[in-house]
């Protein structure tokens, strides 16, 4: 076997003569081409996430919504939630930036893969944070509407008259839980697919190197 490997090595060293050869101009043209690497894709996707969730936050907190929140007795709650939201957004953007800057191709393979996965993790954490906030808001709004909303009162009263108040609340909670769970599942599947395609190879290779260190 050693002999075969030595033979291979010898052949490998001779390989130069059979390799393609690019001219100065051909290489020069290449340095201005756009990279098609996954890091770039992850970067774009991340920017989209930030824009998407910030837009959602802004849309849901226009003047009309504030009036609604007041009538639902959710005014203070929403102020606190929105403030937390923006503070956390800033934190995530900062963390994303720091992690992104750390990506260096002159690093060792293992470190490089780790930093790329870290960038992705930051964004995923941000998405989950938003989904949690979204779920909490949704549940609070459902509850607020039923308690203080004009139609909500009627629905609750009707349920009380029918003598099934407990059952009614159980149903409401049940439906909310199922709805939120379904939503989270969908988003989870979406990300699983997206990053599954993008990062399959990188993850595989990272695991292989990491396995060595155990």
């Amino acid at each position, binding site marked *: *076997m050693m002999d*075969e*490997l030595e*033979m*291979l*090595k010898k*052949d*490998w*060293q001779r*390989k*130069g*003569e*059979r*390799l*393609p*050869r*690019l*001219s*100065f101009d051909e*290489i*020069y043209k*290449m*340095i201005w*081409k*756009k*990279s*098609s*690497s*996954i*890091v770039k894709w992850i970067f774009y996707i991340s920017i989209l996430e930030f824009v998407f969730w910030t837009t959602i936050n802004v849309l849901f907190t226009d003047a009309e919504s504030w009036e609604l929140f007041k009538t639902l007795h959710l005014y203070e709650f929403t102020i606190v939630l929105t403030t937390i939201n923006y503070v956390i957004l800033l934190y995530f953007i900062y963390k994303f930036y720091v992690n992104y800057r750390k990506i*260096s*191709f*002159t*690093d*060792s*393979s*293992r*470190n*490089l*893969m780790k930093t*790329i996965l870290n960038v992705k993790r930051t964004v995923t954490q941000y998405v989950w944070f938003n989904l949690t906030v979204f779920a909490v808001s949704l549940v609070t709004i459902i509850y607020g509407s039923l308690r203080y909303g004009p139609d909500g009162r009627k629905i609750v009263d009707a349920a009380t008259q029918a003598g099934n108040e407990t059952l009614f609340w159980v149903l409401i909670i049940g439906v909310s839980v199922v709805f939120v769970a379904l939503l989270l599942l969908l988003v989870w599947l979406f990300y699983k697919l997206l990053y599954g395609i*993008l990062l399959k*190879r*990188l993850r*595989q*290779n990272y695991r*292989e*190197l990491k396995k*060595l*260190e155990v």
Partner: protein
Amino acid sequence: MNKELEHQFVTELEENQNIVHKVCTLYTNNREAHNDLFQEITIQLWKAYPKFRGESKFSTWMYRVALNTAITLYRKSRRRIDTQDYDSVIYKIKADEYDPTEEQQLKLMYDAIRQLSDIDKALVFLYLENKDYAEISDTLGITEVNARVKMNRVKNKLRTILNP
């Protein structure tokens, strides 16, 4: 980026382009994919070049960036089975040293290497390029002991593929 830096970079890469081509032959299996990967590695090298201060040889520095690009960044383009023409470039042995047995064995070995995982390919590549374990471990980010262990495993793997 000024003109001088561009010129310097392209000159050095032109001189050392064999390293990149060799990485490309290991990680791709047709001409188109080879060129794609070559281009991606060139872009990454160029992006990292301003930070290259000559603390190591240009070629040593290239190994890292080229392998890292192949292992982490590059997504295989759609499978294309036109390896026939490509293989002839890689395996052709000069007429005066033609030896049917040796050629056959080499072909078998290159085929076997193609079947290895990305990381194993990187190890074989660094081994074929005569790199010592210190450099191998440094490039991949594993300890020297683990690099040795892994290398032995790869050699065994090749052995089983060659002699089933």
